[in-house]
């Protein structure tokens, strides 16, 4: 009895320690190290998926486009190419990053997909009001002053327009820029059409879309000896779009300063502008022997802020330093984030099993499937899971007929799960269901074991019971997904991984909890809710 009592006291002490220690470390970080909790709040990120559809007629096909580069304003991550028979090549130039997809003898329809994530900042410049227009052009900037096909610097129309906008050319640069921008904004009408307009045509017609206005701006700036260039990019908005966007940049005081005369952004660029390339170029080039279609699918998401990770500097307690070590050896922070969320998913499953009383397949399966479903999305994750389980269980019924030993039988099950998952992936890619294609990330071994258990349960206790447990598992997967997808929790656990001790403490508490499960109130309802006693 005494040893039991001591064990109980040690347990309580351990429990208190696992509960108090992490909050202590957290408090130290927040108070002593001045860790800003506001920095942990999520930032907006966009997932951009470029889908290109190629219909070939048996000839060699080549397609190229510009892919965004990371710079001080925008960060490009999680790039992913899926191009079937097309070989993919990247040419990382100084200014632009060009991607090319090539294939020989292409016939029929093919899909090429390139996806990436963007996190960008809002950029705003303040131009000193007395900064003069450069008297002489910088010789190194000749490229940004020259005449081009669509930017007819020496055309009399440009000269004439400048004379109208700036009767007195002896003004500071800011006044000149304000004048030109204002003229293009107010006097040249916005046209929402996607065709090509050169600088002179835009000014002559008095109406233009983004590319015409930007060319006119660049042409006028170059005429004034201010280095300027065209920028091609994309305005990031949730949904699908086919059109890119163009704006202008002027080289002022050592900075490239953006101007969008179509959407009235003067010396600033909103955080949903994605830069794809510099120069008067067209976004796509392709061999003419094909039918070519493309669109961008843009999904807005919330992600942890980049700055937050640098906040703690070189302190030993700055866990982000450790994550950057992981990143150097190829383990992305995204993966670390998912790993940190798996114990939370397991805790959710424990609550469902021991407090609510839902029977699920395995303690860890729902959390692992929920983690894998981050790539597929919840709906496709669940569809993929149920498909894999049901088809594998059917296969297992056929194996039953062979009367095999357990281990070889399980090895065959595993093989079949792998084959079936690859089939789903290939089918998904074929029909453009890329979310479904991500089922390959599912934990294969656990699915094989689950399919085996599903089949045994179906044999011993009937399809009704097996279906019921599958349904309960799906419910718990959805709950795990919802909790694990919480950006707040993700940010908190990335910044304060010591909170995992709290998860252990909660499990210690649940491990000693002997209350009646919610489902048992239903099971024993006649015993519990009868009148009298």
């Amino acid at each position, binding site marked *: 009895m005494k040893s039991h009592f001591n064990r109980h006291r040690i347990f309580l002490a351990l429990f208190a320690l696992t509960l108090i220690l992490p909050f202590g470390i957290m408090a130290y970080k927040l108070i002593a190290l001045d860790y800003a909790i506001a920095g942990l709040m999520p930032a907006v990120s966009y997932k951009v998926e470029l889908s290109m559809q190629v219909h070939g007629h048996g000839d060699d096909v080549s397609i190229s486009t510009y892919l965004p580069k990371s710079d001080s304003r925008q960060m490009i991550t999680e790039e992913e190419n899926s191009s079937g028979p097309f070989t993919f090549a990247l040419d990382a130039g100084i200014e632009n990053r060009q991607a090319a997809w090539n294939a020989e003898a292409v016939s029929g329809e093919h899909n090429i997909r390139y996806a990436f994530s963007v996190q960008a900042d809002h950029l705003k410049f303040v131009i000193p009001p007395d900064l003069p227009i450069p008297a002489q052009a910088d010789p190194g900037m000749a490229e940004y002053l020259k005449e081009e096909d669509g930017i007819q610097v020496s055309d009399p129309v440009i000269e004439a327009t400048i004379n109208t906008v700036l009767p007195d050319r002896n003004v500071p640069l800011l006044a000149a820029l304000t004048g030109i921008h204002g003229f293009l904004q107010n006097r040249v009408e916005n046209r929402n059409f996607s065709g090509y307009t050169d600088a002179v045509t835009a000014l002559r017609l008095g109406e233009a879309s983004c590319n015409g206005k930007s060319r006119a701006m660049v042409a006028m700036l170059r005429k004034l000896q201010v280095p300027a260039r065209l920028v091609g990019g994309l305005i990031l908005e949730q949904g699908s779009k086919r059109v890119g966007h163009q704006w202008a940049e002027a080289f002022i005081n050592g900075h490239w300063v953006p101007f969008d005369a179509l959407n009235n952004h003067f010396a600033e660029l909103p955080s949903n502008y994605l830069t794809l390339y510099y120069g008067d170029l067209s976004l796509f080039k392709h061999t003419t022997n094909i039918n070519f279609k493309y669109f961008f699918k843009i999904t807005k998401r919330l992600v942890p802020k980049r700055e937050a990770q640098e906040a703690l500097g070189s302190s030993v307690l700055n866990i982000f330093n450790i994550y950057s070590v992981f990143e150097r050896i190829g383990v992305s922070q995204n993966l670390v984030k998912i790993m940190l969320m798996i114990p939370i998913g397991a805790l959710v499953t424990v609550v469902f099993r*021991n407090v609510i*009383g839902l029977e699920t397949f395995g303690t860890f399966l729902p959390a692992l499937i929920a983690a894998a479903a981050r790539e597929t999305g919840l709906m496709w994750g669940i569809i993929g899971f149920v498909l894999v389980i049901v088809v594998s269980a059917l296969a297992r019924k056929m194996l039953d007929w062979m*009367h*095999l*030993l*357990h*281990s070889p039988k399980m090895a065959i099950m595993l093989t079949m799960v792998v084959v079936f998952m690859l089939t789903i992936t290939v089918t998904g890619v074929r029909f453009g269901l890329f979310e479904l294609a991500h089922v390959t990330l599912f934990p294969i071994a656990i699915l094989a074991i689950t399919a085996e258990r599903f089949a045994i349960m179906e044999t*011993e*206790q*009937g399809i009704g*019971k097996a279906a019921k447990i599958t349904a309960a598992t799906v419910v718990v997967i959805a709950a795990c997904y919802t909790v694990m997808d919480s950006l707040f929790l993700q940010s908190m656990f990335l910044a304060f991984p010591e909170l995992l001790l709290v998860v252990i403490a909660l499990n210690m508490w649940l*491990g*000693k*909890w*002997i*209350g*009646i*499960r919610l489902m*048992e*109130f239903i*099971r*024993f309802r*006649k*015993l*519990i*809710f*009868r*009148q*009298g*006693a």
Partner: protein
Amino acid sequence: MKNPFSMISNWISARGNSARVLGMNERNLHYIYVHNQRKHFRLADHKLVTKDILRKAGVPVPETYKVYGSFYELASLENDLSEYRDFVIKPAQGSGGDGIIVVAGRHGQDWTGVSGKRYSVFDFKKHISDIIFGVYSFDLNDQAVIEQRVVQNSWMSALSPLGLADIRVILCMEEPVMSMTRIPTKASNGKANLHQGAIGVGIDIESGLTVHAIHGDNPVSVHPDTGEALLGLEIPHWDKVIGASRAIARAVPLKYLGVDIALTEDGVVVLEINVRPGLQIQNANMRGLRAALLHGGGPDA
């Protein structure tokens, strides 16, 4: 709107009642884990080990005719079986009733199962090979046991004509705390499994009288297939049922267990012991197991 006082009194009574019910969490943590060491689970799961211990303790078990552990022993199978008309073939470490063949009689060179199915010597050899290979037990190897077929007495046959009924007694610290008999139905396909549709009939430990019965989720008073009355019956050989249960609890190192017993013409025979007896017995008795455990020698008594 209900009378608030009656709502409160209902709530108080539900709270009191729920304190009498044993839930899965408390069963595992305070009864199974505390009283049964993991290393002893095997003696309940391995039927030959169980029978060996019980026989030595003087508890009646089905007689073992023959055990096959390797293939060369199968050569003599036909000869070994020649003297028996009825018997049961089962894996020593099977689970969930898988891999069991109940043989009820001979038909020329062949045998017939309880369901009327015919088996040749070749069928038996193949089935026993499967058992030895471990097809029915997750182990690599198993043994096939050929043992006496348990035939229930006429009293139980009248009550349970669709299959072998068993009596489950749950014991804690060698004291019987709750009991029921499980009666196969058409719905349960002849199996004495409550989840598959067998009837559960609660039995008062002191008197051996049947007190309450459930079929699925609902209380019943007659057998749904035969119309036989189920309540107020006195179980024959009740003293032997309780005696055998106590003897088992004394013989094994498991202090919380369920024993499954069949009634025969001579008395009782023990079918199985279970380290994790289910909780549905509470519904069959319309009585909470927690109250029974605390009343009758549980850990907190």
